[in-house]
């Protein structure tokens, strides 16, 4: 017999969300397109597409290729720039009752800081996520996210520029030698939480043209193909930093995937490539997740967080 509806609320370093299902950056625009299919206010939050200081055209086409249970993409952060975003996109999302996690990108720590500052000034964002998978010109174009010092430099620059009202999450990449070291560096530099993972570096070759299937020499793999990698990162980082809130992502496709990520240590979960496969994916996943909680007799979703690390038989909020 079903009891009362489970309590889905989750806290992300000061951002209180009604449920733990978010969209992943770059996979839902600013919510407008998906709002044709469901009420975006039903989501925990919409993570908006990474925004930079200026407009950006992105990478040439072809930008994506289907891969087994995933896709390879190289969009290159096409976007209108922060001012247009704050004038046009963010107010629209807020006006629809949506909560915004604003993803911020930059070419230098100062650019990240300036964009984050403008976002904070404009008001309305529930959370700022730093997309650290951007080329760092001071490091031969390697991503900020490969190196703990470079990543921490971005976080510290952003922190110094914000007054502190909006939680800042650093989004990490699995393409690094030691993701736990990276996580610790970002937290020490002032990150309120971490989002993991970004896409995994990959390649696909078009055998008809005998050339890379995406322009510009490879891209990032996303989708269920990378889910075990993402879960491994969430699990390891939660083990090392159990008090730091995590947003888990990487191939979330069903309600049970949310359960898995939360048991590994995530306080919320973001849905990415699944939105491309099914524009209603987020609300389906949220429904399936709620049903799964019911099935397991779990009253509070927050009790799941890190559950897989606890000894067998430890209470799970039943």
């Amino acid at each position, binding site marked *: 017999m079903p009891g009362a509806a489970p309590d889905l609320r989750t806290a992300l370093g000061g951002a209180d969300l009604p449920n733990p299902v978010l969209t992943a950056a*770059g*996979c*839902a*625009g600013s919510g407008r*397109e*998906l*709002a*044709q*299919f469901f009420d975006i206010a039903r989501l925990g939050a919409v993570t908006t*597409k990474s925004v930079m200081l*200026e*407009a*950006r*055209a*992105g*990478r*040439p*086409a*072809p*930008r*994506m290729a*289907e891969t*087994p*249970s*995933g*896709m390879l*993409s190289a*969009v290159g952060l*096409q*976007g*209108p*720039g922060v001012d247009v975003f704050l004038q046009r996109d963010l107010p629209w999302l807020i006006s629809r009752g949506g909560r915004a996690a604003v993803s911020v990108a930059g070419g230098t720590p100062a650019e990240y800081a300036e964009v984050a500052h403008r976002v904070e000034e404009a008001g309305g964002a529930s959370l700022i996520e730093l997309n650290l998978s951007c080329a760092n010109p001071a490091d031969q174009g390697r991503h900020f996210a490969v190196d703990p010092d470079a990543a921490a430099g971005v976080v510290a620059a952003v922190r110094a520029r914000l007054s502190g009202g909006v939680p800042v999450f650093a989004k990490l990449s699995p393409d690094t030698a030691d993701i736990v070291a990276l996580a610790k560096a970002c937290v020490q530099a002032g990150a309120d939480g971490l989002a993991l993972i970004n896409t995994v570096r990959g390649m696909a070759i078009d055998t008809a043209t005998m050339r890379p299937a995406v*322009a510009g020499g490879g891209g990032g793999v996303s*989708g*269920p193909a990378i889910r075990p990698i993402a879960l491994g990162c969430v699990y390891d980082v939660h083990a090392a930093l159990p008090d730091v809130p995590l947003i888990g992502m990487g191939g979330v496709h069903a309600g049970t995937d949310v359960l898995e990520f939360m048991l590994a240590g995530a306080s919320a979960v973001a849905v990415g*490539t*699944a*939105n*491309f*496969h*099914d*524009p*209603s994916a987020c609300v389906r996943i949220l429904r399936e997740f709620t049903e799964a909680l019911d099935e397991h007799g779990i009253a509070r979703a927050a009790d799941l967080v890190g559950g897989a690390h606890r000894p067998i038989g430890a209470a799970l909020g039943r």
Partner: protein
Amino acid sequence: MSDLGPVQMRSPVLTVRRVDAYVAITVVAPGVAERFRSGQFVSVAVGGDQSSMLLRRPFAVHDVKPDHGGTVEFRFAVRGQGTAWLADRRSRDLLDIVGPLGRPFPLPRDPVNCVLVGGGSGSAPLFPLAQALRRRGCRVDFVIGAASADRVFGAIGARRVAETATFTTDDGSFGVRGTVVDALPGVIEDARSDVVYACGPMPMLREVSALAANFGVPVQVSVEEAMACGVGVCMSCVLPVVGDDGITRMARSCVDGPVFRGERVRFDDVGAIPFDALGAPGWKSVEQGAQDDAVAEREVS
């Protein structure tokens, strides 16, 4: 949730037919059918619920009928695993359909002469367009090209709806040997065409657009770019298009298109980021450029 926006439905398959080199699938999709305007497309999930193929396949709508509350037909050539899976569907199987998507063909207000140019399976969206134009009293002429006879799309339908229908094949196995671009000038002259509509491969659209410009005739093209989501969020299907303000943007063919004014598409730069596109490396806004120029002038003087 706007009445004009797309809907997502699990649509039963009515029929799967082989038509020459193509497969034609008709699904019962009343919500899509009632919203549809010619030039729009549907996207279809392939491989079933546990599919390892995550990208929806976009298909131009070839026909819409009021039967069973509303049916939608799309045609395709089997090219890979996804289309092979679709071709194996049977009647009453369910397909996850989203549509109608994209900007439709704009229709002329007056009963003018229209020539419709299609290449390969790219001819598909021109058939509902032809019907819409005929309902407005427009004259319709078809020029349809393909590599070979079995790939000529909808010859019978074209003859039925159009004043004239010209066919071209690369190998001469059907109609005139050559391409639609060879045949088009004669058709424009004979039919005194006022408007050109075209759909097909990018090189064909480029040549048709150039030709229409030479004749001083407006041209609407429907592009066939590879898409991932079809609804405007993934930013995969971009191409450089000049806006009303004269600025080139990397436009999404799924929501900003697939129909564009031919002269606005920068065909020579498809697959590249033009240096003067909004946000291209080194790009600066007109205002910023003017400011820089002013500064430079002051420094010089």
